[in-house]
């Protein structure tokens, strides 16, 4: 142990990349300490240098990256001075890492057990047999069901949540002093994320490992970590204990980040999300004064002259803001309230009745002779109705059928049966058979704007295409309209000529939104449109979508696995599991008990960026069953935390109606659900969250 008892002691570290354009100081002057058993959450937008810092700490930088100053100590060892060969010995034994994408981080052609056993063989000097036993022991410790058989499987035979357990088991198997977790739950469903976070929490009680937990999700930090450091453009802006930082928020950047996160107790009708204007600066283009000044709402002249140092404001609470005093005065979260619109019911835009989509599935030799037909029931009898200027949020775990449903409505996928009616007119299943004038009325925005924009076409051309193809505009009209659309999505006019690779992720998604609006659609299908973006960009896009809806009256079908985003943007929410609808109702109602046990589990899994909110721990076992083999009776009974009795396995549950069209499909009587679920999530969070 070093003198101060910290496992990891990083002092004034600067990391520099040598590039063609000269040196880039990506991380500057960062210090942090992590004590045994402590979880340190490092947060920040993409490009803030989180991963660079983590890799520098373990001396795993690419060839052109170098630690140019500072010191790094791991207990008594000076990592910075250690020769390369010695560093390799520390990897895996004293320092381990859990990576972001469990699917990609496990060797696909090597047995799971062997990959865990490697650690024990190399670092603990065990023989093959001992190492194999150790691997199974570790799998048991991470509560892997049936560890013996999992050890003999390959990565593709396990779900994402199970793979993440494998990575954690591997990382813990040498009982390291220090562990880095780099966005370990980002690629997982919210329900799986909750289970993994619980697991990490439990393991920490047994092991005394110091953890550096990197994430962009403030809710995850609030739930798991002891300490938080907010990194911005390579420098720490604020650092302190979770309670202190979340309560006092003594840096405008921290406030900005927290303001971007949608709340579970308010929607677009009540507040607009605050977003942070502008972009994170590149390390070669830093402002002279405070690096956050150009995006800060409290900025004054002095801020732009001198860079403020990280100062201790209260005990162990640091901030790099000059105007901490002003911040301390205004602690309350401020939300920009929106005027309530008098709600009128719009005309019905979309009526989808009993949509089914079965994919034929024939394994093995059968495909040659067409025998043994099985069906993958991706969507199995879902009906939705949408009015104009209305947003329907669809939530559910991955594999629940939400995207297939959207693709059937858009006609990209041909529904197997059911009726799709758009503004009173029955539509063909396939987009190819739909008449020209209905094509423009349904538009889609996809998750990944990189893949949905042609990299060879300037942004303006992408937006112009629907105008030419679907609206027969003249060249001059097109030019005018493109300008208008760019303005509507708040992009500068000179962006019209830019190629997609010259735009940021958020800007590309704005172009995609502009393109969808170019067709003047009645219905826009947004399939996870904000999921791969930073919180501040997410917030500004959600505000943009809300504004555009107010002015154009378009309806959105908004698919997301992020329940707080859905809660914010949707008027109504539909909860989907295994191809069926289980609950539907207004966003407010769905978030208040009684709710469906599945909804309840989803809600209790939401990571809420407020350490004072204590959520009920309702966790789902295992993963979604295969749609090839749907459970009998209520499809949810195999994982239901509130299973009622045998009836759940035998009979399909009935729809139970409540006021205002809120419906739940469950065997448990509403009264009983209400009793079981008490006040629910919403009350508690508003008690703790202020406003």
């Amino acid at each position: 142990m070093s003198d101060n008892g910290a496992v990891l002691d990083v002092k004034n570290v600067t990391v520099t990349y040598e590039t063609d354009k000269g040196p880039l100081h990506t991380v500057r002057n960062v210090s942090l300490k992590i004590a045994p058993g402590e979880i340190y959450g490092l947060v920040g937008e993409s490009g803030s240098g989180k991963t660079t810092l983590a890799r520098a700490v373990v001396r795993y930088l690419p060839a052109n990256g170098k630690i140019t100053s500072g010191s790094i100590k791991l207990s008594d060892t000076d990592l910075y001075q250690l020769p390369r060969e010695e560093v390799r010995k520390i990897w895996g034994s004293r320092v381990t890492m859990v990576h972001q994408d469990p699917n990609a981080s496990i060797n696909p052609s090597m047995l799971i057990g062997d990959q865990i056993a490697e650690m024990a063989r190399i670092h603990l000097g065990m023989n093959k047999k001992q190492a194999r036993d150790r691997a199974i022991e570790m799998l048991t410790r991470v509560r892997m069901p049936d560890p013996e058989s999992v050890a003999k499987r390959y990565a593709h035979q396990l779900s994402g949540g199970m793979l993440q357990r494998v990575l954690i088991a591997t990382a813990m198997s040498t009982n390291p002093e220090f562990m880095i977790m780099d966005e370990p739950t980002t690629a997982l469903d919210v329900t799986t994320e909750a289970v993994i976070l619980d697991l990490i929490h439990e393991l920490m009680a047994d092991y005394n490992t110091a953890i550096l937990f990197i994430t962009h999700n403030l809710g995850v930090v609030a739930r798991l970590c002891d300490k938080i450091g907010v990194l911005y453009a390579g420098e720490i802006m604020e650092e302190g204990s979770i309670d202190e930082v979340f309560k006092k928020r003594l840096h405008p950047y921290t406030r900005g980040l927290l303001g971007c996160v949608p709340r579970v107790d308010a929607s677009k009708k009540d507040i607009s999300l605050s977003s942070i204007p502008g972009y994170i600066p590149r390390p070669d283009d830093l402002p002279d004064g405070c690096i956050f000044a150009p995006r800060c709402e409290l900025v004054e002249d002095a801020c732009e002259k001198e860079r403020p140092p990280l100062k201790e404001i209260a005990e162990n609470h640091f901030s790099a803001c000059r105007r901490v005093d002003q911040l301390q005065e205004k602690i309350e979260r401020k939300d920009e309230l929106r005027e309530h619109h008098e709600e009128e019911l719009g005309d019905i835009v979309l009526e989808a009745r009993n949509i089914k989509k079965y994919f034929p599935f024939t394994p093995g030799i059968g495909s040659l002779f067409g025998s043994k037909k099985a069906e993958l029931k991706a969507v199995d009898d879902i009906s939705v109705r949408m009015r104009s200027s209305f947003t329907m949020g669809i939530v559910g775990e991955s594999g629940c059928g939400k995207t297939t449903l959207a693709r059937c409505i858009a006609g990209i996928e041909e529904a197997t049966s059911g009726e799709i009616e758009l503004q009173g007119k029955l539509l063909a299943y396939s987009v190819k058979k739909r008449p020209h004038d209905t094509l423009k009325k349904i538009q889609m925005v996809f998750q990944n704007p990189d893949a949905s924009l042609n990299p060879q076409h300037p942004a303006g051309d992408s937006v112009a295409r629907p105008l030419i193809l679907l609206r027969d505009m003249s060249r001059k009209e097109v030019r005018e309209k493109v300008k208008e659309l760019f303005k509507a999505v708040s992009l500068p006019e000179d962006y019209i000529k830019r190629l997609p690779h010259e735009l940021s992720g958020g800007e590309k998604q704005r172009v995609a939104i502009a393109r969808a609006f170019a067709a003047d659609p009645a219905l826009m299908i947004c399939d996870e449109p904000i999921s791969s973006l930073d919180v501040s960009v997410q917030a500004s896009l959600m505000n943009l979508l809300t504004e555009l809806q107010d002015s154009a009256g378009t309806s959105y079908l908004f698919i997301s696995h992020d329940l707080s985003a859905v809660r914010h943007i949707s008027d109504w929410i539909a909860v989907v599991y295994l191809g069926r609808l289980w609950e539907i109702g207004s966003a407010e109602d769905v978030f208040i008990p009684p709710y469906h046990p599945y909804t309840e589990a989803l809600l209790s899994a939401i990571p809420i960026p407020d350490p004072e909110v204590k959520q009920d721990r309702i966790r789902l076992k295992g993963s979604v069953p295969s749609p090839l083999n749907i459970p009998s009776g209520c499809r949810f009974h195999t994982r239901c935390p509130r299973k009622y009795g045998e009836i759940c396995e035998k009979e399909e549950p009935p729809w139970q109606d409540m006021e205002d069209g809120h419906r739940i499909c469950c065997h448990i009587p509403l009264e009983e659900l209400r009793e079981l679920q008490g006040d629910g999530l919403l009350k508690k969070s508003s008690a703790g969250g202020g406003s």
Partner: protein
Amino acid sequence: MGSYFIRRIGFIIITLILASIIIFSITQFLPGDVAQVILGQFATETAIANLREELGLNEPLHMQYLNWAGNFIQGDWGNSLVSRMPVRPIVTQRLVNSAMLAGLALLIYVPLGIVLGVIAALKRDRLPDQMITGVSMAFVGLPEFVSGLLLISFLAIGAGWFPANSSIDPDSTFFEALPFLVLPAITVSLTGLGYVARMTRSGTIDVLRSDYVRAAELKGLPGSQVLTRHVLRNSLLPTVTIVAMGIGWLLGGLIVTEAVYGYPGLGRLLVYGIQRQDLPIIQAGSMIVVAVYSLSNLAADIIYGMLNPRIRVD
């Protein structure tokens, strides 16, 4: 695995049937009448008519095909129109010769190509990589008659280490034939090496960039173990495919090399058959090449499946 195997065999049978139809049809379109070709320019009308009858040439095409295919399956591949000898011993003899040459060439260029490819990937964009990539590309581009003649003039005529002419005895065993095989094998290896090295290089670079290799390094595994346990098994997958494609090429496509060395392989037999419109030779030779192609691809897929658990089918 069992049903997968059966399915693949089924596909191969379908492939062979389709190939036989195509081969049979193409040989029908070759210019000239078969009977005329056999009997020569000065044959009488009656003789030609008799021979046509005898050969079954007056029957409808599909009957001719079925007769031919039926006989082919039973091992009667017909007689050469030129030499009147049975085709089967000729073709199998040449197949054995080609297989010997292919075997030696594969033994040379596959291991060498993999080693060079891995070295190039590990030293990417540095001198060893640039040298390996540059030289192997130059060899791929070098025509076989050039490299063949250069090898003959230096190693055979100049140094006198190997015979310049490789027209071996029909009955020689592999070891008897070995000295004659070396130069042609080196010649084709120069081409094959480039493909294998390039494929291995790019496959290895992809895998070296993967998250699981990063994870393996951060486990503290020694570099050699990262390479053998985590990299190679995944990075050699594309190489397996290119090697399998090479087998077909080695057995039926080495026309130039075989000609330069006078080596009696399958490729030259086919050219010879086409020049003389010796239909049974063309048909049998082509069928053998198609069969070898299909089987080597099957072998590649099985090896692929062993290396890559993701595509193993139960």
